[in-house]
């Protein structure tokens, strides 16, 4: 939320698509709402059942004063809706904030986090230890270690959203 605020200071209201059935989605939504409050951004969680719901929500976001979409960790959203979210957001010119640099390549405006490859690489060591018979209690949690800020310049330009040029110096990778 801090980076979103730095890049897009004009955005004051965003949507978070969540799936209440998933505990992780609920926790991530709560954290996002709390973080938004710190930077003066209203985060509205919305649950959609299918693609029609999704299109209806996104098509009315501008009218309702929403300036962007934030995608939080959620199995359903990340795996089944992301491509539709990116498609409709592009159509309705709404910037999307994602968690994985790969999503920026697919059309996400800004992504901040560790790539799926990096996470898999890091997790593979843990998996290997478990597969070799090590006790789960002996394997500690690990934080992701390679976090990148990636911006899709083409999408940013096409959406015509106002952004902070200085904040772009924080970007690790710009996808042309």
């Amino acid at each position: 939320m801090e980076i979103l605020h730095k890049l897009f200071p004009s955005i004051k209201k965003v949507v978070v698509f969540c799936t209440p059935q998933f505990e992780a989605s609920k926790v991530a939504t709560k954290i996002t709402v709390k973080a938004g409050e710190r930077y003066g951004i209203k985060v509205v969680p919305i649950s959609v059942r299918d693609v029609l719901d999704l299109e209806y929500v996104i098509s009315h976001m501008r009218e309702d004063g929403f300036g962007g979409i934030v995608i939080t960790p959620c199995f359903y959203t990340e795996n089944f809706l992301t491509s539709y979210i990116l498609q409709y957001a592009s159509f309705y010119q709404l910037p999307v904030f994602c968690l994985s640099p790969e999503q920026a390549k697919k059309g996400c405006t800004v992504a901040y986090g560790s790539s799926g490859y990096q996470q898999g690489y890091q997790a593979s060591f843990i998996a290997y230890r478990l597969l070799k018979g090590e006790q789960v209690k002996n394997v500690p949690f690990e934080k992701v270690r390679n976090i990148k800020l990636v911006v899709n310049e083409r999408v940013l330009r096409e959406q015509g959203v106002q952004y902070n040029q200085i904040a772009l110096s924080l970007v690790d990778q710009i996808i042309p």
Partner: protein
Amino acid sequence: MRVSLKTKILLLFTFVLTIQGISYFHHFYILKQELVQRWNEETNVLVSIMSDKLSSLLEEKVSQINTLIAKYERLGLSPEEVLWRLSGDIAGVSEGAFYDTSGRLLAFSSRLKTMPEFEKQLSSLLERVERLGYQKDSYGELYIRIKVPDFQDNVFKGFYVVSINLNSLLEDVYSLSFQHVNLYLLDSSGRTLLSLQHTVSKNFLRVSSPVKGTDWTLVIEEPYQTVLEPAYQFLLRAFFFGFLSTLGLGVIFFLVIGRIFKPLDRLKESLLEWNEKRRISLQGSDEIGMLSKTFEELVNRLEREKEVYMNIFNGSVDGMLLVSKEGKIKRVNKSFLERYSVKEEEIVGRDISQFLEHGSHQTLFIPEALLTIGSKRYVVNVCTVPINVEEGEFLLYQIRDLTEKKELELILYRTSKLSLAGEMACCMAHQLNNPLASILVYAEYIHNTVQDEKLREKAGIIMRQALKSAETVKKLLDMAKVFDGKPQEINPYSITREVIELLSFKARRKRVSLEFTADINTHAGMMCSSWKLEQVLINVIENAIDASQQGQKVEIKLKWENSCFVWTVRDYGEGIPEEDLQKVFEPFYTTKKDGTGLGLSLVKRFLDDMNGNISMYNTQKGLEVVISLPSKTQC
């Protein structure tokens, strides 16, 4: 104390098992020591390599930080932006802060936290790389804060303080192949800074190595149990397979021993019973000992019996042959070899049919059979008996020589014939002598009294013929004398004349003329058996007459040569084939239709008795027989 063989085998089995168990544990103990020693050696090398790698990784991070700070500052980035970049570019670096030259906090940045915790004021302002301390986050990951002085164009600008994730560093040096290994990073006072603990145990093997350039110590420990796992596995496997193999062997052993001992027990009992009957005392500690003693006794008895049988076999007067069922001669006795003048190797291994015409594998008795040894033939009678000896079934041939018996029979036959002729001649001579005497007396009276010359001449003829008849009668009486084989002074000329006279009737009947010429002193004598000489001459001249055709002649010559009387008898018949010349003196060889084949063999034997010699030659026409007898040698 008598211990049975079963008990001995059980004791041996137990002993082997004990040895096996002791060797297992001994090997296990040695293996344990070797494993511990090897673990210490290998892990010492490993921990040393790991500590070196940790040290070099840390130096590399500091070097990277210096390089990137210089790079980004040249690009004109602010300290906050530089810190952001550092946390993105260097793995394990997630946050950092910038202090001015007096140690006041000016800027900070973190990729994970909005407000990272940094001291407001640095305690150390030395312009060198320093480790400021350690920090743990909410996940328990340990960070070390490194202070790096910032120089721009050799102008000291301040300090960058960067947090480096030690967990990340340690995992980079940690080998995943170590499953049960615990890794510790200790500080200078021995407190655990960081641990990658995988195993909990009471007993550990532990090695450590200092990390260069720091006051840290890297420690690797592994449970004693894990290190010695191969030894325990060996013990388990050895015990398992040893138990299985021993059990299997035991079962097999039990079955085999059972199968061996059951008949052995029965054999032992029966032998003991037999020995009790034989009253043989056996001494032995177990069944095998008793059996071996019994068998030894049996073998000795068999050997003695075999020796007796061999003595009987060899000592028999008759020839004995042991012949296999296939007809191969396996053994021959001494009597056979001596009687037929042959060597053992010429007989043994040959087929019986090569020697005996009537070779048979049945029990039989052959009254007369022809036995051929080399070029000689013998008349034998054969008795065969089947016998079982150790090598199998055989036939025992008992061979009795009948050759001499047959010869004697012939002589007896001839002698009996001559004897009858002699008796008849004697009788006739007695009957003729009285009329002849009257004829001679009256013829002499007429010859002396009458004046008529013609009558006187005829009376003279009657006188001469009567005298001649009287002479013939006298000869008949001489021939009828009883056979006497003793040597005596004889006249060879007279003997020859008498024999020719005797055979002249046969010659005349066949129209064969006998021509006798003598080139010796007609009164010369020699010591010899007249009967044997007569038999020799009769046989030879008779054979010549038989071989001659009608109208042919037989020449008989008597001469003196090299102190020997030599008779040459020649006929003009067909002679004898050259290949048969050597056989003619063998018994039962004959070319005559009704011949016995014994005549010339007798001639040969008689001449051998008299130190004489006989030889035969085929001439251009007929056969020539030469007989020589030494005059001075007593025969």
